């Protein structure tokens, strides 16, 4: 059996993508509208790592050691397929900046090598301090840049840990193999370690080295939760509908395959 669809204004092989996109747009629109109107959104499952962040900041204040934030040596990707992760990590940065301003902990941010993302990072940290009304605590020299490659970044972060001490090490963002050294070194130096990434291949490092971990997708959900913004929270509901859609999609696939259709070709539409 052959499946052939020809729509003039659509590239072939993108039909299913469009269906999925339209589904997402409608669901997003619906829940964002609900959020704007102030309607109640469902309650979210508890993520222990979020409270641990506050605890870690508290501990840093007690021990008078700084809080470190990393988004990865290549964590400032703005024009790649990982841009969502950069944004999620910025949400977390804003949260930690607010907490540090509130409790008076020093925040050291280890910048990614993508210089084009620095303005965004600086603005995020400044905004966090500003929201707590403590702009004067912001220190530009605590944004540290190391250039490209894990060789310099890992050493730089480790040296920072040694020099300034580490109370809490929060690592959320796009991580490649570069993350294992900072996580383990922070742990060895006696700091509390919390982190997560959306790149599944590196999640193992967080699962094994962190005190509290955001497993994979949890970084997005956590970002939304800590922002305490209903619009952001509505995003989690959108994801949830997406999961439901995928499961249905999978079930339909199984049924179609079971009755003998060529699913490979159907999915290629």
């Amino acid at each position, binding site marked *: 059996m052959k499946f052939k669809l020809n729509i003039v204004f659509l590239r072939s092989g993108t039909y299913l993508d469009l269906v999925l996109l339209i589904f997402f747009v409608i669901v997003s629109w619906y829940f964002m509208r609900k959020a704007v109107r102030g309607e109640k959104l469902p309650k979210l499952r508890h993520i222990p790592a979020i409270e641990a962040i506050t605890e870690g900041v508290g501990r840093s204040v007690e021990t008078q050691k700084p809080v470190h934030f990393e988004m990865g040596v290549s964590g400032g990707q703005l024009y790649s397929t990982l841009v969502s992760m950069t944004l999620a990590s910025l949400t977390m940065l804003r949260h930690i900046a607010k907490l540090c301003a509130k409790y008076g902990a020093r925040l050291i941010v280890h910048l990614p090598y993508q210089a084009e993302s620095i303005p965004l990072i600086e603005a995020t940290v400044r905004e966090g301090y500003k929201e707590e009304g403590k702009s004067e605590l912001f220190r530009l020299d605590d944004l540290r840049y190391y250039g*490209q*490659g*894990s*060789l310099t970044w890992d050493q730089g972060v480790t040296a920072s840990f040694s020099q300034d001490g580490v109370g809490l090490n929060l690592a959320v963002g796009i991580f*490649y193999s570069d993350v294992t050294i900072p996580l383990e070194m922070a742990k*060895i130096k006696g700091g509390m370690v919390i982190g997560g990434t959306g790149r599944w*291949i590196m999640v193992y490092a967080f699962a094994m080295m962190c005190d509290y971990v955001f497993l994979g997708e949890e970084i997005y959900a956590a970002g939304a939760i800590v922002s305490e913004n209903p619009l952001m929270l509505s995003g989690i509901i959108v994801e949830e509908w997406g999961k439901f859609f995928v499961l249905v999609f999978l079930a339909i696939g199984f049924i179609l395959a079971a009755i003998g259709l060529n699913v490979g070709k159907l999915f290629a539409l």
Partner: protein
Amino acid sequence: MSGNKKEPRIIWEKLGDLDYRWLYGLSIILMVIPIIQPIGLPTQVGEATKGFYNAIVNLPPGSVVCVLFSGSAGYADEQEAGFVATWKVLFEHNLKVIFVSTAVDSEIILNNELGKMVNPESYGKKYGIDYVRLGYAPLDEVGQASFAQNIRGIFAKDVYGTPLDEIPLMKDINNYQKIDLLYFQYLSCTDIEWVIRQWVVPYGTKAIVSCTTACGPMAAPYYPKQIQGFIAGSGQGTELEILSKNPGRGAVLSDSKNFGILGLLLFIVFGNISYFGKKFGKRGE
């Protein structure tokens, strides 16, 4: 009596809480032993490596092979055994080779290794006729798609600044049609999909790949249908060295790896003895 009861528990605690530096030191010592005194533990040649080798040697002489090379300084040990052996095989079998670097460090590594480790001149190969170097371009998926369609769109000149039209080898070559085999070396495991999506599926180009050990499993499902063979890391690089009778540094690496892991295994056993010791020690109280 109580002293007797407490003593083993202290040992359990110690075993599970050893300073990491003991582990680091032990591992280093274990790794160094085979380097000083090579042992020569045997290696078996796998199917994927055989496929990789056969894909090259079965090409008719004069076929064009395009090497998309993303060597990285940080992974040189992992990659070197594989790509050096591959280049040697390419030159031994009278193939025409186009070298392209796809990562920042690659061009420098290429510059370094092509000539030192593998010298085309020693195989009687002439630049411009038997092989050519196009230089560096960040060829991600989009880049590879346009490279496959129009090479001159990305490289108007070779690495020495000669326009491609003036290079004998490149005269008739401007897209996938004249490329008989693609050899893609990549770093990030999912990059293999670029070759599948941009070369193998649309044009049916024959392809072989090499990657790091960690990426091997991701490449495995594509063999032998989409790709002709693959080399994952220095382990399989050693296999290619054996297969092509070009001994290199892979063998020592393998020996040293065999020993280096033992320290970690021992410590994991310590950790578990300590865990269960503590657990059952408590129960006994």
